[in-house]
């Protein structure tokens, strides 16, 4: 250091400290003890930060380096930078010590905060000083979640020649993407691009695929995690089953299909969808008469099976193994549209969520891809009237698509779900393509067509005759046989009430129901919105505080397929790096204040 530093530390107290999570006063005391620190100031009202007053302060005290510490001190930095400039100092010497960025809030938050401040005082990026030591790594990897992110990550690693355990909660891999009809903006068929990958996973010698399985427990350290996985039995011998469908035909139980999000039924013994991987039938114990009656009733499938592949006596199995890295790719749930009463989802039969529409318009869906409205049909078995999709049903004459359902709303999910605009445009295209006579209206707030080719897609959809209406519609009500949708067309300065036959709700994405359990089990953080936290927003978007545990895809935050795939591959890079180099970085939160402080000091000299 050429000139002697005179450092001023400004710590922002935002009330969170008061609850005892971070003790700002202790940090201030600590900062005072750091070399060359001239003064430490606590402040709590950022609105009152006046650069000119600060400049006076700097000038008087002769400060030539400023450290601003706090939750997100970057917010105050411009004021300090200006103050430094006004005081005639070097604005580059204004440094920030961000508690949020560097994961303060975990174990020993005050110590971590101190370390962050120390690094900023020494002028060393925290990431350089806080490097955990390396530990040996087990080359096997656990991937939790078999959606496109999990598939991609598993394939990348397995293709390099290393063992991957892929654990999927449902009976097939594929995740949400397998349910989609088309993908924006190229409109290629989702199944067409995903199924080869699914098949590749199913056939890969390095991938051990566990469907109907649940990670029960994870213990150990980075590089050597002991994993317990509970494999639920499907009660069908995969090797013997030839997928002849005789069992499903025989099964008398009919329940809503998960894959068709309830718009079609499946049997209690079923295959999730025709291209499922593994392509094996499953008995859903909760709905199977035989299982529920403990073998006293039914058993029709067992009798029909020519290959004796059905074994009701198989038990769930707990398997244990060790892995070096864990990739969390658990994806998302969609927003429950029932929570937004004004759209009458669940009340009006032809108000559909996006996933329901995906299945409806999908050639493998209940209507063979025809877009029709639901009509009332008598269910002969239960003698009740049900609203059902049927190929013969009339086609809608007008379809409304409402964006941002549950997203960008303080009352529900405040964040943007990132994909809805584009998939809604895709719906618009599908409606216009399949029903050229039908009118299609998109009610949106901001059209977020930000990716490669998206904006062009938006233009194309408009050219195809989809009406885009800026303004989120307020309500959907019954209107004779049809529905009435009321909204404001902001650009054309008018209120519009339109009779429509089908309303599609572009429901947002939200963290899965078991994300919390998973986070606790793995010891990783979640942000306020429920998504898993990344280690650093910019440069470590896929790592977590715990070494060897990574997040990929939507479980980290909403994203589209290309971004998910890129992230999944990025995680694979992290994993491969550790395997190829034979060691993995341990957990950052095992570092002590002293470790970081000393390292920062040595780097500063």
């Amino acid at each position: 250091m050429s000139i002697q530093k005179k450092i001023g530390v400004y710590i922002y107290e935002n009330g969170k400290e008061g609850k005892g999570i971070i003790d700002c006063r202790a940090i201030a005391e600590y900062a005072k003890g750091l070399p060359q620190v001239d003064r430490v100031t606590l402040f709590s009202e950022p609105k009152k930060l006046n650069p000119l007053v600060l400049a006076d302060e700097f000038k008087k005290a002769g400060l030539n380096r400023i450290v601003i510490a706090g939750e997100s001190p970057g917010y105050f930095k411009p004021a300090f930078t200006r103050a430094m400039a006004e005081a005639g100092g070097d604005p580059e010497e204004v440094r920030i010590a961000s508690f949020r960025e560097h994961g303060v809030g975990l174990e020993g938050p005050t110590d971590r905060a101190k370390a962050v401040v120390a690094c900023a005082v020494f002028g060393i990026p925290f990431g350089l000083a806080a490097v955990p030591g390396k530990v040996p790594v087990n080359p096997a990897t656990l991937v939790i979640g078999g959606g496109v992110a999990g598939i991609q990550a598993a394939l990348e690693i397995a293709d390099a020649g290393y063992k991957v355990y892929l654990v999927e909660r449902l009976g097939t891999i594929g995740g949400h993407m397998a349910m989609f009809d088309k993908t924006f903006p190229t409109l290629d068929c989702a199944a067409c691009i995903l199924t080869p990958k699914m098949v590749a996973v199913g056939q890969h010698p390095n991938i051990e695929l566990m469907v109907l399985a649940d990670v029960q427990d994870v213990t150990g350290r980075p590089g050597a995690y002991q994993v317990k996985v509970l494999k639920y039995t499907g009660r069908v011998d995969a090797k013997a089953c030839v997928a002849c469908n005789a069992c499903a035909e025989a099964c008398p139980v009919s329940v809503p299909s998960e894959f068709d999000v309830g718009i079609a039924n499946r049997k209690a013994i079923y295959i999730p969808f025709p291209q499922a991987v593994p392509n094996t039938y499953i008995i859903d114990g909760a709905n199977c008469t035989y299982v529920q009656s403990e073998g006293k009733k039914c058993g029709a499938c067992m009798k029909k099976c020519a290959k004796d592949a059905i074994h009701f006596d198989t038990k769930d199995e707990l398997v244990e193994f060790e892995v070096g890295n864990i990739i969390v790719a658990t994806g998302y749930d969609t927003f429950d549209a029932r929570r937004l009463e004004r759209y009458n989802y669940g009340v009006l039969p032809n108000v559909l969520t996006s996933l329901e529409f995906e299945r409806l318009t999908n050639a493998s869906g209940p209507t063979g891809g025809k877009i029709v409205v639901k009509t009332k049909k008598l269910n002969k078995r239960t003698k009740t009237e049900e609203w059902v999709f049927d190929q013969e049903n009339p086609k809608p004459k007008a379809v409304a698509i409402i964006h941002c359902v549950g997203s960008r709303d303080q009352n529900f999910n405040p964040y943007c779900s990132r994909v809805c605009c584009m998939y809604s445009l895709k719906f618009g295209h599908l409606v216009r393509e399949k029903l050229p006579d039908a009118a299609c209206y998109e009610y949106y707030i901001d059209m977020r067509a930000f990716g490669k080719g998206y904006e062009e897609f938006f233009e194309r959809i408009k050219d195809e005759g989809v009406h885009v209406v800026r303004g989120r519609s307020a309500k959907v009500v019954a209107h004779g046989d049809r529905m009435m949708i009321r909204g404001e067309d902001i650009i054309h300065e008018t209120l519009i009430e339109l009779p429509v036959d089908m309303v599609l709700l572009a429901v947002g994405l939200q963290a899965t129901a078991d994300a919390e359990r998973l986070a606790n089990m793995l010891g990783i953080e979640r942000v306020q919105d429920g998504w898993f936290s990344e280690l650093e927003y910019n440069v470590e978007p896929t790592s977590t505080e715990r070494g060897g545990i990574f997040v990929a895809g939507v479980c980290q935050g909403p994203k589209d397929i290309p971004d998910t795939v890129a992230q999944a591959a990025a995680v694979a890079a992290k994993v491969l790096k550790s395997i190829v180099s034979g060691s993995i970085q341990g957990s950052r939160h095992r570092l002590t204040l002293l470790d970081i402080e000393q390292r920062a000091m040595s780097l500063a000299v």
Partner: protein
Amino acid sequence: MKECKIGVYVCNCGTNIAKVVNVEEVVESLGKMDGVVVARSYKYMCSNPGQEMIVQDIKNLGLNRVVVAACSPRMHEPTFRKALENAGINPYFLEMANIREQCSWVHDDAIEATEKARVLTSAAVRRVKYHEPLEKRSVPMCPATLVLGGGVAGLAAALELGDAGQQVYLVERENRLGGNVGRVDLTAPYLDSARDLLTEFITRANQNPKITVMIQSKLVELGGYVGNFQARVEDAQGDIIELAVGSVVVCTGYKEFDASRIKSLAYGWLPNVITSFELEGMIRKGKILTKEGNVPQYVALIHCVGSRSLEYHPYCSRVCCMTALKYAHEIKSAIPKSYVSDVYIDMHAFGKGCEDFYRRSTEAKTMFLMYEKGHPPRIREAGPDDDCGMFIWVKEQLSGEEIEIPADLVVLMVGMEPREDSEAVAHLVNISRDKHGWFIESHPKLDPVATTTDGVFIAGACSSPKDIPDTVAQARAAAARILAKIAKGEIWADAVYAEVDEDLCSGCRVCNELCPYTAVEYDKVKKRSHVIYAMCKACGACVAACPSGAIKARHFTDQQIFAQIEGVLPWHSNHVS
């Protein structure tokens, strides 16, 4: 040649094919063709049971040729090849007829579409008779990697590989690492320090013994092929350094749009109209001032300059909205008495934490004004009596009013565009560019970092605008591919390539110059040419050109194509006039 036993499989593709093409009719007609042992249809040939059907037929009926009439071979050729392999026959005994993308999806008339499907499939049957068993061959993989561009993407890729213990050459044109992020102070939406981020990356790169950083250097030539590239890099002294690398990651980034191209925005004419990068510089210096040296009272930010425009770039530059929100915050925070207006089209606050940042910005009383795409704002100088320097005219969309916004300083959020040298780089490393000049990935969804040239990857904003987290993810994705290849130690070259029949070659040397990959080598002693298979990409330019017919394009032989031509042209009686 062994007798041909052909199996024909026609896919319904759900209803994608079957709703237009009468699949059963095609099956029936094909079943009668010479050499066809079995013809079947199935709902989804690509599904496991569909593939299993083929496998079983091969095993049970002794098929030695398979024709699948389904979707585009670009989609499922690998799938069915794999099935053939599983059944124990050479995967190249497969031919696909594309009766979906080129038939059922583009035609409505069931009769004509069925006829076309039949003809296409029968042509495939004729062709498949001439198929030959082909084997893949491997070449060694050089574990070193060349990374072009020392921005965030290049650094992330280099660090990932370097930390894994692999040699990396990081080549940067400028005299410093960091690229465009090096000009940035804080990053949206959490206002983390971009400088700290870069310092960390650059320090780690410089300290890593496996990473050779070459600044003020550029790639001048790239020869060789995947796993075995020879790169010639010109360094700062003008010396040429030869590097042997196995992979190349292109991270050449972007450049900002030249705002002076849009006359109505008066950039370069009115002194206080500046670009976002100029403002970034002011913020870093702590001096947000007009050219006259005054502290501005009114600051306006104009979004989508050069982006989402019909005249300039139709695409969205993806990061400017958040950057603008960041500036709004920064200006307000540095000059608490200022009023910030933000003139936008749609607010693209789509990332994690971004909507929240947008909300914060509204709460800080940034005035958001929306203009219509295609009707950009106009800037004019204010009169002497006005309390501001300029006015921005906008047809405001949310109020429907034509308004004028007072401004002392106007910041143009310039979009991203490909660098001037992107065409040259594309040629050097042999990758394609889209109509805007961005590099094209091999598949936008499933392979966003690979290119059509094996061993050459793209990452970051050189393929399309993106923010730092997405850039870093892409850079690491490229590193993952490379690490996987390095872990295997060898590369399997495609079985499809050109080969010279030396008994027919007269050494006329017409072919040598034609090969873009210099894969056709002339042996001066033998006076014959031959093809280096690992370098050959099977384009067939030499094959078509060889006047002696001495070069054979494996899997695309003259015979095969002739058979296909004959197949697609059955002689109708009604055709003769």
